[in-house]
Structures are given as C-alpha cells and as structure tokens.
C-alpha cells in the first residue's frame, strides 16, 4: 500500500516493519515525530529519555540484550550522547543499533547548524543519508543489516527537508522481531584499556571492510547520462540536483561514510566537469580532493551555511550570480514566533524585562523572552546551560563587586535533561544565583511531549511523576519558593526577594502549558473611553493586542478571537480600562 508520509514517519514505519523492539530518544526539531509515530503504531516499545545520552545508552543496553533498537535525536543531541557514541563504536553491537540524527541546515529551529556527517567520520561508523521518505523507510532495513553484519552502530542522518517533507512510500515485506541471546562478553563490552586497545584496531579494520561494502552497495548509485557535467551529492540535495539538471550524470551517495573511493574515481573519470553538491560542510569534497581527484565546482561556489536549492546549484554550476527571481515585498512587519496568548512565560518575562536583570537563558519556548519588546534573556547556549552559566556569572560578579545576582530561567524538561547537574554544582560550590524553573508539565517547544514530570509515558501509560521542589531541595537548595507568573505583583516581589537573599534561590512556577493542556479562558476587552493609549499593556507582547484608531486617538483593542483571558495585560493598565469580555467566544488559534 502506498502512503504519503514524512521522513520521520517513514523511519518510524521502517523501525516497526523491520523488527525493531526498543526505541528511545529525546524530543528535538526536526527529529521529534519519529518516536511519536512509533508510539502511535502501538506495536513496539518506545520511550522518551530525559536526555540523548540516556536514550543512546538505553539503546546500547537493548542491543546487547538482543533487540533491534533505535535512538532518535536532533543534531545537537548527539553532542550530549557523544560520550556513549565514541565508545559504542568500539564495543559494537549485538542486535542492530541505529542512531537517528536530524540536522537542521538553515537553522529553522536550532541554535547551530553542525553537520552530523562529521560525527560518522569522527566515530568511524557507517552513516546513511536518505534523500526522501521512501529511502528513509528503506534505509532502516539496510541500516539494521549493516549494523549487524559489521558489528557497528549505524547513524541514519536526516535533514529538516527529509524529516518534515512528505513523499510517497511503498511498504516492503515485514520482518518479525527476533530477540537474540543476551550477549555476555567481557572483552567486547568492558572498555578497560586492555580491551579497548584491541577494539581500536578492530574498528580501523571494520572501516576498511565498510569501504569495500560501499563500493558495491546499491546504496551508492551512479546515474550516467550526459557526461559534460557529473555531480556527486546526497540527501535532499540529490532532488534539487535532479530538478536543476535532469540530464546530468549523478553519483548519489546513500551511504555518506565511509566513501566508495574507487566508485568516485571511476565516476570522476567519466565526466568532463566534476561538481559536488553538499549542504553544510565540504566533507565529501575534502575527502575527494585528498584522493587526488580534481573537483571543478564545490564549496568555493556553494556556501557552508544554510540549505542548497535549485537556484544555488545552477548559479554554482554555471558560474553566474544566484538568480533573484521576483523579490519579496519589502518593509512588511515581521511575524516571529511569540508566546502563545495566555502563556505563563509572558508574565515572568514582563517582570524580568522591567527589573532589567541579567538573565541566563536556556532552550525552550521561554527563549522567546530574548526577543523585543521583552529583551529579557542574555544567554542561550545549550540545554541546561542557564543554571551552570549563571553560576559562573555569579562567581565572577562577586569578584567584580557591585553587581546584581544573575537569574537563570529554565523549563521542566530542560531541567530534567541537564539542568539538575548544574544546580547540584551551584549548591555544592556555594553559588549565588536566582533560578526560575518554569514547570509547565510538558516539553513545550517541540510540541508538548511527555517527560518525567507529566505522569505519563510516551506510550500513554501512567508513570511516576517527579515533583521538582523536593528534587531541588535534595540537590542541596534550601530556598525553594512557589511562583505564580500570572500575578505580576507577586512575581515581582518573589524575584526581588530571590535577588536580595544571599545564596542559591529557586522559584518554581507550576502553571501548565495552555497549548498542551488546551486551557481556555474568556477573552478580555478594552473600554475605549478609559484607554489613554499609553501602551503600557503592549509591553506584554501579546498578539491579541493591537492599536486601533489613528493619530492621537489611538487606543488598544483586544482581538477576542485570539485573547485567551490570562489577564496579564490588564495588570499593566493603570486606568482600569481592561476587563473580561462578557459572553466571549474566544480563542480561534
């Protein structure tokens, strides 16, 4: 049967169809839907781990116990899991193990655009790079086979345009899950130096065998047509190349590490001009040039930054400026993502903005607090860094003298992921920061996934629900106070108290995510004759608000279709002009 599904859905389907038994991961755009889809199938065990390292380690255990397994994460998640990966490559596997990693060229929803192909090279593991949903599905099968045949973890890499693009997939014959014997093998899995040394030699030898495999595998395909131009490419760039030059010769690499040197050499010898089209780093190009092969067009013409497209490919191949096409209309107001109407983060950042404190931020919806008009976040580095960075800031602030205590803001899921260890350090090392944990009981920015605080597993089963306050106390923090970020006055008072009190101080807001838990409240309205147009309420940056009228007579209007009645804006009004709208039929968004 044919289906139209995304690359993520295709990988989930492949995992279910090709004998997968254990899936783990941590949500991260654009990888998230993969595990959600495995859960939706309801046929295979799957779970959210608190972070990517735990996910990969659990997958390692599943493989040793004899079950085919996948760990899913976004590109930066591999940084967290890298400790496990770099030794996993030495131990190898029992049942097939796939590490699915989703890159985000163009940074549609990421803090950097690292190219995960570097990890395959670094860890000396095979990597497959599908170009569409059908391949994403097929490569799961190939991936398990390669992993088991070569006793290696295998990385399956997608990019945003694979993970989130939908194409037609035809299912193959299914493979029933089989659980192998538990592998009790000390020299294979205990990486003491003595065993590790043997293993290192083995992975070098394995890489040579994988290279041989890459030479003949149908995963790497030559499409020989017009030999004037030959293009080596992979992933979605392959389809952009086909769209641009339907008649060009193409060497399409489905296996992007290790490279098939002889195949590349032969292809290069058959074409007049050799071009390499790869998004992000010049990983093929570097290796191909090192083989002594002349590359006519590559990273000298195609940027290391962002995605490629047909215009970029044409301009590089023909040495022309990139076609501009029709230009977008200029001067339009931007429409960046924003806190949802009635999100609890709005109240918090309204006050943080007012107090002009230094805010060490983190990864989550609340990162939007950095945008105007709030501008109330001054760092966002990686998961958990809010707390650890605030600790470092506080230490140097003390040395500098005369500086205010820094504030860290972090969400529940990020706190479980890697905020806890930073807080432990702050308690242990006599730190002095105010930490605000926005515990909205979901992993919000990735679409509302379960986590150890939600009381449910990925598969919807009841789970033990961790409470953050006792956890924080157990880490060694004495001052732990509850916060209600919808109450601006109380929030301001609580933050001031936290700033004045010496030592680590933790505030926890427990208002749930209105989007995840579908919370609906009646809309607000403005009494136009009382509104002076002072714009104080607009500082809360809510899309339900806007100015109406012109010149000096501008007043604020609340869009009843959008307002969700949190009342944060009404607390900004000094003229008592904002009230609940009677009989409001609210929230169309």
């Amino acid at each position, binding site marked *: 049967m044919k289906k*139209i599904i995304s690359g993520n859905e295709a990988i989930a389907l492949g995992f279910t169809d090709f004998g997968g038994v254990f899936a783990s991961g941590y949500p991260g755009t654009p990888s998230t839907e993969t595990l959600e889809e495995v859960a939706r199938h309801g046929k295979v065990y799957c779970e959210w781990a608190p972070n990517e390292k735990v996910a990969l380690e659990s997958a390692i255990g599943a493989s040793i116990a004899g079950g085919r397994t996948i760990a899913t994460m976004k590109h930066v998640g591999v940084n967290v899991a890298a400790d496990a990966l770099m030794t996993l490559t030495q131990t190898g596997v029992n049942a097939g193990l796939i590490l699915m990693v989703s890159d985000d060229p163009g940074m549609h929803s990421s803090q950097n655009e690292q190219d995960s192909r570097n990890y395959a090279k670094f860890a000396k593991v095979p990597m497959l790079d599908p170009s569409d949903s059908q391949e994403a599905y097929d490569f799961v099968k190939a991936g398990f086979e390669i992993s088991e045949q070569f006793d290696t973890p295998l990385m399956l890499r997608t990019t945003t345009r694979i993970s*989130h693009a939908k194409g037609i997939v035809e299912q193959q014959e299914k493979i029933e899950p089989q659980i192998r014997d538990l592998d009790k093998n000390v020299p294979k899995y205990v990486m003491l130096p003595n065993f590790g040394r043997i293993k290192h030699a083995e992975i070098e030898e394995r890489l040579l065998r994988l290279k041989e495999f890459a030479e003949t595998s149908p995963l790497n395909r030559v499409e020989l047509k017009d030999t004037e131009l030959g293009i080596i490419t992979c992933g979605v760039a392959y389809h952009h190349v086909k769209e641009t030059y339907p008649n060009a010769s193409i060497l399409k690499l489905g296996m992007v590490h290790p490279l098939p040197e002889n195949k590349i050499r032969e292809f290069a010898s058959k074409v007049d001009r050799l071009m390499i089209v790869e998004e992000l780093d010049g990983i093929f190009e570097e290796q191909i040039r090192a083989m002594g092969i002349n590359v006519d067009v590559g990273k000298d013409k195609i940027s290391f930054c962002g995605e490629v497209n047909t215009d970029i490919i044409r301009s590089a191949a023909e040495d022309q400026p990139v076609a501009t096409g029709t230009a*977008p*209309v200029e001067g339009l107001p931007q429409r960046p993502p924003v806190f*949802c109407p009635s999100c609890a983060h709005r109240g918090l950042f309204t006050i943080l903005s007012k107090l002009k404190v230094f805010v060490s931020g983190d990864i989550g*919806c609340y990162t939007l607090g950095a945008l105007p*008009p709030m501008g109330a976040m001054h760092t966002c580095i990686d998961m958990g860094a809010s707390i650890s960075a605030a600790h470092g800031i506080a230490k140097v602030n003390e040395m500098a003298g005369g500086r205010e205590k820094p504030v860290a803001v972090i969400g529940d899921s990020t706190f479980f992921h890697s905020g806890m260890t930073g807080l432990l350090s702050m308690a242990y090392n006599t730190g002095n920061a105010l930490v605000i944990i926005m515990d909205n009981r979901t992993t919000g920015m990735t679409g509302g996934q379960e986590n150890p605080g939600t009381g449910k597993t990925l598969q919807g089963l009841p789970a033990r629900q961790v409470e953050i306050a006792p956890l924080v106390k157990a880490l060694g923090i004495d001052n732990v106070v509850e916060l209600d970020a919808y109450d601006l006055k109380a929030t301001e008072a609580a933050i001031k108290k936290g700033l004045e009190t010496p030592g680590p101080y933790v505030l926890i807001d427990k208002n749930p995510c209105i989007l995840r838990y579908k919370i609906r409240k009646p809309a607000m309205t403005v009494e136009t004759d009382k509104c002076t147009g002072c714009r104080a309420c607009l500082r809360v940056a809510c899309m*339900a608000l*806007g100015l109406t009228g012109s010149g000096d007579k501008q007043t604020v209007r609340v869009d009843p279709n959008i307002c969700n009645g949190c009342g944060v804006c009404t607390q900004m009004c000094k003229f008592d002009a904002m009230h609940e709208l009677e009989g409001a039929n609210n929230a169309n968004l």
Partner: protein
Amino acid sequence: MQIFNIVIAGVGGQGVLMASKVLSESALASGMDVKQNEVHGMAQRGGSVISFVRIGDQVSSPVVMPGTADLLISFEPLEALRYSHYLKPGGRLVYNKVTINPSTVAAGLAIYPADVEQQIDAVCTEALGIDALSIAREAGNGKAVNMVMVGTVMKQLPITEEVITAVVKQLSQGKGREVNLKALAGGAAA
C-alpha cells in the same frame, strides 16, 4: 503533466499543515506523485508558517522556489503579501481577508499596513480575498478556516472536488467531519 506548485501560508495555529495534508493526500488518491514540505519547529502560535505542495507525474525536490508557484493560498492578508513573490507570472492568489496582528504590531513596534488588500492587488492581478472566518463560523467552527480555504481553491487544482471531499471526510472525525465538509462547501461557493 507539468508540476503544479502550491504554496500555503498563514499564521501558526491556523491549520496550514492540515490543509497541506488534505491536498497531498488528495493528489496521492488521484494517482499522482506528490511532495509536501513545511517548516515547523516552534510549537507556539503566532509565527509565520509556509508549506509547499508539489503535484505532478514525477516530483523531485520538495521545495517550491520563488517565482514558480501556480497557486498561493494564504490564511492571512499580510502573509499573502509576504509570500506573494513565490507566485509565477499569472499565478493565482486566494487569501483570507481576516487579519491577525503579528507580535511586532501587537507590541507597538511595527504598523500593520492598512492598505494590505490594495498592495496585494498591486502585486497580483489574479488575487481573490474572502472572509474565511465568517464562512467557517457559519459552518460551525471558526477553526475550520483551513477547510474553507481548500474549498475556495478546489476548482483551480488538478484534482477533482469529489476526491478532495472524500479525503476531508476520511481525515476528520465525529462532529468535526460535518463542520469540515460544510466549510469546504462554503469555501467552494465563495
């Protein structure tokens, strides 16, 4: 058949992705090749959203390039203008006339162009604006704006109305099914 390029634009939360799903499932049900692609990351409401649907005998790239869209469907006027350069010369634009303030306007940092409809007409001679929110409300739910928009463009697609209607029926459940079908029909009559 030549590839038919559709761009769907709107504001996060308006149901752009569901509309894209209806169109791509309908293309599949009609025996055509199709690629659909949207960029979604942040789950919050309020950001600008764009989605591509490409239909044809064989479709390679999932991305519609500026200047190549046969049809732009926008759920909001400002977004219609923002992505109007995706239209090819002579391409059609259908948009919902109900405005939603961007956060930049709501915060008083920018001004929503009062002449947005005139600006749309200036960049696209084939533009049609409808009040999709009213039609959706008449159908029973203001959230059905996406189905109204699909209904409005049905006649311009290389897919039959019967297939689209069947797909909407199949993809929606319970009370929502009736509302969606009404919204689709309401859009078609607009």
